[in-house]
């Protein structure tokens, strides 16, 4: 069994509102998984259940084949959560040492400091006096304090500038090279695409796609063939063509959505459908992602 995180038909209801609805997936050792979705999709709720901070209303969450609340499991995981401020009245190095003391095999102090890029002066400062970005770095150090096998990051890059983001993702790359399993949430498709081996796409509490970034992109970034609309063309006929996933009319043009534009054009000519002003469009990935999540919202 090399699945280290398993969610089995997990549902979480808050006051009759389903935040997570019948979600199932499993994550293997060494995977870097992005949980992608718009705000309110159930990403954080899922992370909280994987960490044992929330109990599922129904279904089961297992981490390393155990309940996530078990002490021996908590020794093997680390996490950076949203909206966690730092403890007051302690210096940065004191907090790092405190966290190292919680774990049986902590990461060496110097290594942790190197990971966070905090300098010597920062270490001597009171943690509550640090800037927002520095607090994040401290949070990152605390997530890694126990040298965890499995690390969770909930929206790690929100509020970070471009340089800090780059630094953060580089570090994730290093962790990955060490064989750590990493689960992070984001609402940026680009981040998920750049960093993750696998994307689990969430919307309205359910998984709508699960696959490699390439697979997800292929599904999301639809191509289309469009041409001038005319009386003679029947949209229902077009829908029956092979490789066509959707057909619609907009601004006097007909759009045929497909993943195989060449085959569709060939078919159009073969059927002798009179078309003019042909254009082929490649949808932008970000737009497609937005459209997908918005469309589901309408349903």
């Amino acid at each position, binding site marked *: 069994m090399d699945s280290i995180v398993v969610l089995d038909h997990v549902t979480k209801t808050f006051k009759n509102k389903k935040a997570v609805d019948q979600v199932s997936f499993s994550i293997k050792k060494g995977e870097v998984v992005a949980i992608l979705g718009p705000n309110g999709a159930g990403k954080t709720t899922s992370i909280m259940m994987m*960490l*044992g*901070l*929330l109990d599922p209303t129904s279904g089961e969450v297992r981490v390393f084949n155990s309940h996530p609340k078990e*002490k021996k499991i*908590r*020794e093997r*995981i*680390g*996490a950076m*959560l949203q*909206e*966690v*401020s*730092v*403890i*007051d*009245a*302690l210096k940065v190095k*004191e907090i790092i*040492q*405190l*966290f190292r*003391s*919680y*774990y049986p095999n902590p990461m060496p102090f110097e290594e942790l400091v190197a990971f966070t890029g905090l300098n010597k002066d920062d270490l001597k400062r009171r943690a509550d006096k640090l800037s927002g970005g520095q607090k994040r770095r401290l949070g990152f150090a*605390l997530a890694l304090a*126990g040298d965890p096998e499995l690390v969770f990051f909930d929206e790690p890059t929100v509020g970070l500038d471009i340089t800090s983001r780059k630094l953060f993702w580089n570090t994730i790359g290093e962790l990955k090279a060490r064989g750590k399993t990493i689960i992070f949430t984001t609402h940026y498709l680009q981040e998920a695409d750049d960093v993750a081996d696998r994307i689990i796409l969430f919307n309205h509490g359910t998984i709508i796609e699960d696959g490699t970034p390439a697979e997800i992109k292929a599904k999301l970034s639809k191509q289309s063939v469009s041409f001038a609309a005319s009386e003679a063309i029947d949209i229902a006929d077009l829908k029956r063509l092979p490789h066509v996933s959707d057909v619609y009319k907009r601004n006097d043009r007909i759009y045929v959505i497909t993943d195989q534009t060449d085959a569709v054009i060939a078919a159009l000519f073969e059927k002798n459908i009179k078309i003019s002003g042909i254009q082929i469009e490649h949808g932008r990935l970000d737009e497609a992602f937005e459209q997908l999540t918005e469309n589901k919202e309408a349903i």
Partner: protein
Amino acid sequence: MSAFRMQCKVEIIRILRNPYFVFWSLLMPIVFYIIFTKVFNTNIQDKQEWQAHYLMSMTAFSVMGSAIMTLGIRLVEERTKGWSLFMRITPLSDHAYFAAKMIGQTVIHLFSIVIIFIAGALINGVTLTAFEWLMSGIWILLGSLPFLALGTLVGTMKRVDTASGISNVIYMILAISGGMWMPMDVMPAFIQKIGIWLPSYNFGNGAWEIIRGNTPEWINFLLLIGYLFLFMLLSSYIRRKQEAAV
């Protein structure tokens, strides 16, 4: 076990670095002590007894304050900042975390008792027998438990502002009507009637009896233990209700 020791140490450091603690629990009681034994000390028959009595009042006042306010407000702060939630993903158990807080507080109380006792001995040359010093110290240390439980009750409040406002009011009411600022017998009769049932009076009275060469009254023991259980039950009931609401 080293994690637990480290946690206790950190809790103690955090309290000592808290300026409110230093001001309210160390400085204020000593200043009050000077004012009420050095400045307004006319018409007192037994000066020595009064100086020892008021030293006990101020020590109890200090310890009661840090038990209710330092602990209570800190608990609320840690929850609102998401810190308590974050602690739950570490291998340190909730019980260990809580126990470390209690031990940290108790060490701090011991520290306050020693400091204020020394201040009393230096300022007024209060002389008690070694047995009286020891027993009154132990009484104040153990008697702080119901107030720690009251602190955890304050700790269940949702906002830091509410917690600090309410705990301040409770603290002052308990201190004044429990005879810590002025002796009980100069209080209006109706306050005396209520006061003798308050935990603060029973807390102070144990120490006042000890320095007079007596032992604390049975009712002091009983009421303090009763309050301890009452506050513990209430705060664990509220906590459980809050957890169920998530």
